[in-house]
């Protein structure tokens, strides 16, 4: 499978604070990549950097950034991809629709702008899109204002808008934030299905590991502005190499099976902190002096990639 989006060495600073410290991320054609990590790990920043949506105070630099073979380093290229090639499903769906216009107007305006449709054609296509996100009464939703709809309905509409330009990649930034717990899983399932149906790839940002297991093909685990572990969902779930990813997964799975809530000791580092060579070292049960002094090396085992001095391998000798 070829890479659709490939980002290497993405750095973002806000003022002098490093937020992203060299993120490498790759989304392959047709796959759904889950990006997980605690709040402040830089997940949303990564998505915003790709779409050039960061505030002007942020300085963004890439080593490389390609999308379907095209160089995406110039901001202009990334701006032009918005909507057309990369769809974006925002957080907090209710706040993400323009409150002044009816849902139908927003959707068909987007269609007319992105696909050059006429008024009538756009309305038909808008209704089709609403149907494709499993809205059973598209006519009513089409005529509604966002504040007349439930959060879940708004999120469906947001997904429909993101699909309007027939993008090759859909980036969903914590799409279940602000939704009822009862419909979160349903929404993510829908998102996964819709991405597949539209022959697109997906990048799903979340801090909910349970979600990832159901929907994603591969998972990138982020910590303190870096991707620390990358692998297929099965690999990350069964034998994550990085101690952080491993603990994250074991906590999530023990919670799912009714275990007592645990947490990883320590706290997520602040961007203002002086980070050790391995940012996770202060919280890591396997940390040794070298973790604090030397950059953790990349370890690749069976398709999985981790940055760690002491990866959790069953056969430690294979390094």
């Amino acid at each position, binding site marked *: 499978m070829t890479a659709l989006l490939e980002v290497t060495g993405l750095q973002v600073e806000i003022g002098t604070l490093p937020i992203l410290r060299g993120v490498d991320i790759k989304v392959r054609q047709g796959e759904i990549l889950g990006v997980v990590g605690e709040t402040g790990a830089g997940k949303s920043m990564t998505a915003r950097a790709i779409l050039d949506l960061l505030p002007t105070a942020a300085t963004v630099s890439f080593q490389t950034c390609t999308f379907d073979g095209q160089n995406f380093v110039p901001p202009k290229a990334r701006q032009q991809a*918005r*909507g057309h090639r990369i769809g974006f499903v925002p957080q907090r769906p209710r706040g993400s629709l323009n409150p*002044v216009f009816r849902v139908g107007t927003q959707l068909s305006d987007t269609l007319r*702008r*992105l696909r050059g449709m006429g008024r009538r054609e756009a309305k038909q296509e808008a209704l089709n899109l609403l149907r494709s996100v499993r809205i059973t009464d598209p006519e009513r939703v089409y005529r509604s*204002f966002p*504040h007349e709809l439930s959060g879940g309905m708004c999120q469906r509409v947001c997904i429909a808008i993101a699909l309007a330009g027939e993008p090759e990649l859909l980036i969903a930034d914590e799409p279940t934030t602000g939704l009822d717990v009862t419909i979160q899983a349903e929404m993510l399932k829908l998102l996964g299905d819709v991405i597949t149906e539209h022959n697109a790839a997906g990048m799903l940002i979340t801090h909910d590991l349970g979600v990832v297991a159901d929907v994603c093909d591969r998972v990138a685990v982020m910590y303190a502005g870096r991707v620390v572990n990358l692998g297929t969902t099965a690999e990350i779930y069964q034998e994550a190499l990085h101690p952080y990813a491993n603990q994250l997964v074991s906590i999530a799975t023990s919670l799912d099976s009714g275990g007592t809530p645990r947490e990883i000791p320590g706290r997520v580092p602040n961007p203002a902190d002086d980070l050790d060579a391995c940012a996770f070292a202060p919280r890591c049960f396997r940390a040794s002096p070298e973790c604090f002094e030397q950059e953790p090396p990349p370890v690749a085992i069976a398709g999985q990639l981790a940055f760690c001095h002491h990866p959790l391998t069953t056969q430690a000798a294979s390094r």
Partner: protein
Amino acid sequence: MTAGSALRKWDRRLLLGVIMFGMMVGVALFAPWIARNDPLAIDFGTQFLPPSAEHWFGTGKLGFDIFARVVYAARYDLVIAISAVAFSIVVGGPVGLIVGYLGGRVDSLTMRGLDIIQAFPAFILAVGVLSALGEGVFNLILVVGFVGVPTFVRLVRAEVRSLREHSYVEAGRAVGNSRRQIILRYIAPGTVGTVVTQAAISCGWAILLTAALGFIGLGVPLPEPEWGAMISEGVEEMVIGGRWWISVFPGMAIAVTIFSLSLIGESIADLVEPTRRKSR
């Protein structure tokens, strides 16, 4: 059901406002048919008459018929106030939208410029500019409108600065809207509510400024009737002579006009901000 009744309530307010304001506009348009007496006729035989069948609103110091003057004054006051406020909005609104959205240096330069204008009391500024331009209704409109520009720039700018941080604006950018589309479709509609509400307030304020200018002889030149100037004329008579009718009737005219404008303003604010409808 609830949406329906809320809508009807909203309709009633708009209807009342439109009827009242329409009445004032009608008075202005059909002044010659409504007022039988000549508003400019000086008659020392009919000085200070209280309201009667002959002179509904009484007469003033020079024997003017107050009713006729109140009616004819609507022409001046409405035209001046509405045109001046329209001028303020047309100039101030777009400036506020642009500097509010762009921020940075353009924004601070504009705001410092406004600070300089607003450092002068509005009245002094109007007197200064008007004496430079010369009298006349057209210049009066320009000056009253100009003095109101900073209010609208600030209002719109403040609104834009909070609106542009909303997640739907970011979402709009994320689906490829250009900067122009973002300003016009995502941000500008959100400012209309406050602008319209302020416009109604500003109209009243414009009438008062016009009156104040009239009082010192820079407004609508005497003996042409103008509400504010008429109030000023009558204040002394009311306090000393107990002749209340000279000031009260033009005052009521101003009150009715401003009240109707604020009813209209509020209803339009609800119309353009659909989320407000539910909340009342």
